[in-house]
């Protein structure tokens, strides 16, 4: 039979304690958006290489000497496949094109911008994350399956691949927290709460006001009934009073 136990509460918002005892929350991105971002980056790299290869093939044919063109192609392949990630992640947005499209960026585990050294390390170790793959760099690009990096990413708490673990970096979301709002009810008179409220409780009451338009009347009343210890009312009166409290909180918060 199922057994009740004290199970750790998980969240996508993960706290990081800094040296001064300050705790910050990072919204760390998981394997799904990261995989999609990587796919986009790979497509960009592949596209660039394809165009460049076509140019080089034309040069080879016209010049009659395949060696110089081949050499340049290999050098460019090396720089594009390795430098692409380092260049963009060292940039001010700390993200490759794929990551930016998905609203991600690379930061230090403390939330600071990752240093160039860290970016360099995490991308050098991309080779390890790409294992297992086909050895040899005949095409100028290592062909790997990303199996190791993927397994590491899904099995670590902060969704870090090996490069991230070594370089002490994480990939986080850049866009603001998700906010849901509906049509807001018309409340004329604010009502002061009957008890002291914790911050989380105040936010919940304000959210009740903001999202009230998303729910049916019955659901609004049902939710307000759960807070009847605060409103000291049930049913419609309780809901109206709770909305009044929400308005009071919102006005005070301005």
């Amino acid at each position, binding site marked *: 039979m199922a057994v009740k136990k004290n199970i750790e509460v998980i969240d996508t918002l993960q706290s990081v304690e800094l040296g001064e005892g300050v705790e910050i929350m990072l919204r*760390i991105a998981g394997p799904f958006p990261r*995989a*999609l971002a990587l796919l986009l980056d790979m497509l960009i790299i592949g596209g660039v290489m394809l165009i460049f290869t076509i140019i080089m093939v034309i040069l080879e044919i016209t010049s009659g000497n395949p060696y110089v063109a081949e050499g340049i192609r290999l050098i460019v392949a090396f720089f594009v496949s390795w430098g692409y990630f380092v260049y963009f992640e060292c940039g001010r947005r700390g993200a490759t094109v794929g990551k930016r499209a998905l609203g991600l960026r690379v930061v230090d585990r403390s939330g600071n911008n990752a240093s160039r050294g860290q970016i360099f390390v995490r991308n050098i170790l991309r080779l390890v994350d790409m294992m297992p793959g086909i050895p040899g760099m005949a095409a100028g690009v290592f062909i790997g399956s990303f199996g190791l990096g993927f397994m590491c990413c899904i099995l670590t708490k902060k969704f870090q691949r090996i490069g991230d673990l070594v370089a002490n970096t994480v990939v986080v979301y850049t866009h603001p927290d998700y906010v849901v709002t509906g049509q807001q009810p018309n409340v004329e008179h604010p009502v*002061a709460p009957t*008890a002291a409220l914790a911050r989380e409780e105040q936010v919940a009451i304000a959210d009740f006001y903001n999202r009230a338009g998303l729910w049916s009347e019955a659901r609004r009343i049902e939710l307000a009934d759960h807070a009847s210890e605060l409103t000291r009312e049930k049913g419609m009166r309780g809901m109206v009073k709770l909305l009044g409290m929400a308005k009071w909180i919102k006005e005070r918060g301005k």
Partner: protein
Amino acid sequence: MRLENVTAKIRPRGRWESIDLGCAMARRSYGTILMAWLITVWPLWIGGIYLMGTFMSPGAHVFFSAFWCWLTLQIAGKIPLFVMSRKLFGEEVSVFTVFKEWWTSMIFKNFWSRIIGRFSAARGLSLPVAELEGLKGHAYKSRVNLLSRNGGDGAVQAILVCWLMQLVMIASCYFFVGLVIGLYGETDVLEMITVDLNRYGDEHAGWWLLFFFYLLSVTIIEPFFIGAGFAMYVNSRTVTEGWDIELIFKRLSERLKTMYINKGPSRAGEKSSGSGLAGGEVTPSVAPALATPPSLSVSKGSPAPPTLSKAKIPPSLIVLGALLGMLAFSSPQAVAGDARVDRIMKSDDFDLNRSSSQEFESTRSSGSSSSRGSGSYSGSYSPRSSPVGNTAGLFSGVFTMLFWAAIILAVAAVIWVIYKNRKALAKGGLSSVDDDAPKVKSVMGMDVTPESLPKEIHEVARDAWLRGEHQLAMSLLYRGSISWMVNQARVPIIESDTEEDCLRRVKSIQLGADIGSYFKGVTTNWVRLAYGKKLPTDNVFMKLCDHWPFTKKKVVMNLGQNANEEGVTA
């Protein structure tokens, strides 16, 4: 389901963040899910495959086996969902429980609906709707539509990424097997395995291998995909039903109830619709002092503004409340206290109490700017040192240096390559064979100077072969061929070239079809003997000797005018 026991932070999340929560849930129960999967889903698959094998042809067998496993994946998804949904609400499920549930009821429940559900693009989200709410038909469809519009809009993206991940895992399996058994480059070994599989095994062995890798990848990935779907479902319900708010209201009521009980019956029985104050709620024992009930009318017809009481709040309590982070606003009664609190909070000692939210600035310039009193911080990242950061700082310093060193080296390398090839670049093209190409003396460690070889190479090789010195005989032919290519045909072979490189270079020189194919034959047989220890047959070797093209007479015949210009007569 008791929302109070939930073991994940419930709040509305964006598309990808809710999927991330699903991954975190799957990771938390990964061991249980994998074990349960092994003793429930795999037997179902293997049983089906075995049954099909009894009456199907081998070709149809592999195809329909794969189809069977693919089709039942939505039924298999019940396993991770069962484990995760219970764990989310605080129940630890054992593998044995899953096993019992699976074979007694889970597998048969809505069997055909799940088979049909397999074809849905949003199957990750629809599975929890069907399994946890038990909806069917029109109600099920409209429910899925509603949830997918409200917070479940990532279901299709999730399945796309899931396919990508499955491809990654299948490729990983192939590469891993290649690394372990084949050792890339050793094409002979791979060739032998393929030949053996075809000769002694099923002719569909390759398909079976792919099928097995598919099952492995699905076993690894599917829990995360189902977790993502389940988390999207929870997210949708959080948005559409306000789960997060319900949860906090319940806890709030619970807290207040405890507080009122501690205050005693006189307070607990109070049904005044009064406004107390929202000062600092510290402990139940101080609550009476804080909750002085004034009168307040909230009647629908004539809502009157709150009547303020003359409650006196001990400022020390307010300060204490503020310190505990419980004071976010104060009632109108506490204006005097507020002023004092504001004064105290403005002092430098209370900087720690600022809540902060980070925003990524658009420039790299750093510097901290905290807005006092507003409780928000929207400055840039100020580079702080931390215990972790100190070590990382050292490393990052070293690696920053390495980074710049690598950049400088790379730039130097590019300049060097351009300098070395300046002639070619200046001319825009050269003749395909450089007349000044240095003659190499050895290739792959083999001496290729004409002096090191007998004059009639093929005759000497033939004698060696007949004496039983096969390696020597074959090496003479190969070495002789390379020597001719380097010294007579001026093929730009260099010392570090491999057999494949030599072949490629010879091919690019256009020496004639006969010489090209002969050199290819010699190379293939040499590689097989040298690395695979596979001897060519007597017949093959004798043919190689008979067709030896690198005598003066034959070469003139074969090459024609172009070859003559290359100095064949030398």
